């Protein structure tokens, strides 16, 4: 009997969200298949890659490869240009880690200056990530949304604790895209989308960050959650879970011991640079296979590898 392929068709699809303005924009989502199931239907928009830079410059960067790539860039604006020009990059992600009150605790004004410098230096689509402290982000991210009016940037992240401040500023007042971050749980992800849309934010202007982990660090929860979110969005047509998913990878992977332990301490593990890249590539590849529509990376080699993977599979 000849093989007769049955296509898995869904009457629902992931929302399409376009980040950026002018000539350079990037569009994610739009598929009505499971990730890379191009045999069921061609992909509308292949997954995208963002390159992450920090307001702290290269201060917290351990990787020699990343440092070498940005060699010669003396300002954050120049770093942003190099990031935008990286082979395989679709957009730039600026993380404002210096704002953390438990860290350097930069003032909101200082950080807004950094945001403006980056935005002025590039015309690539931009994602801005907060400092991860919910109170500080509630103060900082509405200002970021205001400063970047008209650029249609994605603001990461609005959480359950500060959704009113960030959702209202980014989603309503300044018409940016709201990144809704939850903690690796399908119900919590949906609940945040529900309350955000009840604020009046357009569901088509929400992107989810459902939370992530480095591969090997409870990562199976991430896979299961993404998988079930895609399942509910497509098979149950759950419009509160049809937002595309973006996953910041580097912030997780460059902090684990596989990336930070030196070769001197762990000779049997091999060179740390290679390990750091491997962690980033493995985690990002798994995120994309599980359902992420975009990933945020740092190392040029990781970006190149993931870019090749997307081209081969999408």
């Amino acid at each position: 009997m000849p093989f007769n392929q049955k296509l898995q068709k869904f009457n629902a699809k992931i929302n399409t969200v376009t980040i950026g303005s002018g000539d350079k924009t990037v569009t994610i989502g739009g598929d009505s298949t499971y990730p890379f199931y191009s045999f069921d239907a061609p992909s509308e928009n292949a997954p995208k890659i963002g390159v992450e830079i920090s307001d702290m410059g290269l201060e917290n960067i351990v990787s020699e490869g990343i440092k070498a790539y940005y060699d010669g860039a003396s300002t954050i604006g120049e770093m942003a240009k190099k990031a935008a020009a990286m082979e395989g990059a679709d957009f730039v992600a600026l993380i404002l880690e210096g704002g953390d009150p438990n860290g350097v605790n930069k003032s909101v004004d200082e950080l807004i200056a950094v945001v403006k410098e980056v935005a002025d230096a590039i015309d690539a689509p931009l994602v801005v990530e907060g400092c991860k402290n919910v109170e500080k982000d509630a103060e900082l991210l509405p200002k970021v949304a205001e400063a970047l009016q008209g650029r249609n940037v994605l603001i990461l992240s609005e959480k359950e604790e500060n959704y009113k401040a960030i959702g209202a500023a980014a989603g309503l007042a300044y018409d940016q895209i709201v990144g809704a971050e939850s903690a690796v749980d399908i119900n919590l992800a949906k609940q945040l989308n529900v309350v955000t849309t009840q604020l009046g934010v357009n569901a088509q202007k929400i992107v989810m960050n459902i939370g992530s982990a480095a591969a090997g660090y409870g990562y199976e929860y991430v896979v299961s959650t993404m998988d079930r979110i895609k399942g509910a969005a497509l098979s149950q047509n759950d419009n509160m879970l049809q937002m595309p998913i973006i996953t910041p990878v580097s912030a997780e992977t460059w902090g684990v011991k596989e990336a930070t332990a030196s070769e001197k301490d762990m000779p049997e593990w091999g060179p740390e640079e290679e390990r750091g890249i491997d962690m980033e590539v493995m985690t990002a590849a798994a995120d994309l296979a599980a359902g992420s529509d975009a990933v945020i990376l740092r190392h040029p080699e990781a970006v190149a590898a993931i870019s090749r993977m997307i081209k081969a599979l999408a």
Partner: protein
Amino acid sequence: MFKVTFSFEDGSVVEAFANAGDNLLEVARGANVAIDAPCSGNGACGKCRVQLKSGELESKKTLHISDEEYQEGWRLACCSKISADVNVLVPDIASAYKSRMKVADLSSKEEIAIFENAKRDVELAGIELKNSLEVVDVTMDPPSLDDTMPDNERLTRALRKYLNISRVRIPYAVLKKLPDVLRESNFSVKCVIRATSDDMFVYDIFGKDEDVVIGGLAIDIGTTTVSAVLINMENGEILAKSSAGNGQIRFGADVINRIVESQKPGGQQKLQDAVIKETINPMISEMCKSAKFPKNRIYRMCVASNTTMNHLFAGINSDPLRTEPYIPAFFKTNSLFASDVGIDINKDAHIIMAPNIGSYVGGDITAGTLVSQIWNRPEFSLFIDLGTNGELVFGNSDFMMSCACSAGPAFEGGDISCGMRATDGAIEACTIDKETMEPTYKIVGDPGTKPVGLCGSGIIDVISELYICGIINPKGKFIREGKRIKHDKYGMGSYVLAFEEEAGSVKDVEITEVDIDNFIRAKGAIFSAIRTMLTSLDFDVSMIDDVYVAGGIGSGINMQNAVNIGMFPDIPIEKFHYIGNSSLTGAYLMLLSTPAEKKTYELASNMTYMELSTVPIYMDEFVGACFIPHTDTGMFPTVMEEIQNR
């Protein structure tokens, strides 16, 4: 030594002495002053507030007391140390849980009807309402110089002849009064006996003219509330009814805290005393006084309670219940007598225990299952007992499954800042105007009683109304502003039901975002347990024919509102039935009827216990249910419609 004076709002005072550095809450406990401290006194719940009237206290500042309140002298008892002579006011809300023991006269028809219906239902199910206690008339020949048999043998022979039973036991209490009673009544007596096929036990003896009623005591020992009925064992008539807060509350709000407390030196005795000497014995005294019934004529008792409570009641080590593999000392036992545990009734009285099924599904549930009659129908029914632990039984005449989930004390008003049991001053029902956000409520007590707090049914109504009126979002956070919406300096919102001046308390009666959050978790635990149990059987909520709701949440529970907040599944409202305190009713039936007692043992051994913590989907279901009404609104179509219509 310093003098500590506790003043109450009614003007009474209690004095105690303490050393410098002693914890005020401990001093209060030592002096038998009831201050509610559900968190066991570690500063987490903020309920043990007292007001400093004079003197000094060394108090840590906490989040629970605002600067303004601190200025007014408000302190948390658990965070205060004695440093001088001091006088503190214990406000009503802090002692409300002790809730002035309530002895109900039997005017309430509904109360009586519950017991009458239960009796009728078990009889219809073919269970005979009879027990082994009876009063028999015995006449003996008086002794003479020719007939020198001692009194006890004389009685034994007469009884043997009467009932044709070989073995007759006469306890010391009867022996002691035997010579006098026999002679006073000229050897014509009444005996209270328990007769089985080959054994007879003589509880008591009276002259033949004495009017003897055999008393029985059925009691439900809840983690938060204890209730009891005194009955006539011959016909089941209820002579008195009583309820009171469980005296163990001051040692922690939930069973785990109680078990932990019982492991401290002398703890087991303290907890047993708290429930028996401080709670049950005073209830017995009050009931006997109101019914003019002698305590020592109560010859049998039946206890229905959760596994931890019956272990603590019996004074048996309960620690193994708490630690893996969670093994109780007994499921069922016949070995308990009144004198063993110091219950103030006839000391030879036998104590029947409703059987446990597991560490977290106890006798209260087996007794309740007996009452719900889900075992007697082919249709599928769900029985829910809303207590500090929520327990469920699902099934029909062919099978029964049970499980327990930890709902916390919220249904009985615990863990809620203005929460209280359904006693005088509790708001038990409420509606809110969508436009003005003004509340209208019903208060427990005589007309004109001022609101003091909220009981379980009131909390359900308030949250349902706040949600339907769009005042809170599905997460329980306030999204509208107005005169009745307040925010504290940390931004936490609250809704004021009664401002201080309209309330019968020292502060506003309000519900805060934290209260709502606690309640959402309690209702989420119940709903997710229902879903998990049904899903594991491959059942859907639409297959439930009847839902029987029991528990101390209050007879006024509005089922529609309970569905609105997502506590119960969205099925037609006429399928829900409130069956009152089924644990007490079940204890009553087991007490009155030996066949009912046997039936309960049989039900217990036929129930399958499902441990939710080992079911992987439970956690997922729980998070999904911690949203009003549910993350998946598709499960609550009528609620969504109601919101549209309001």
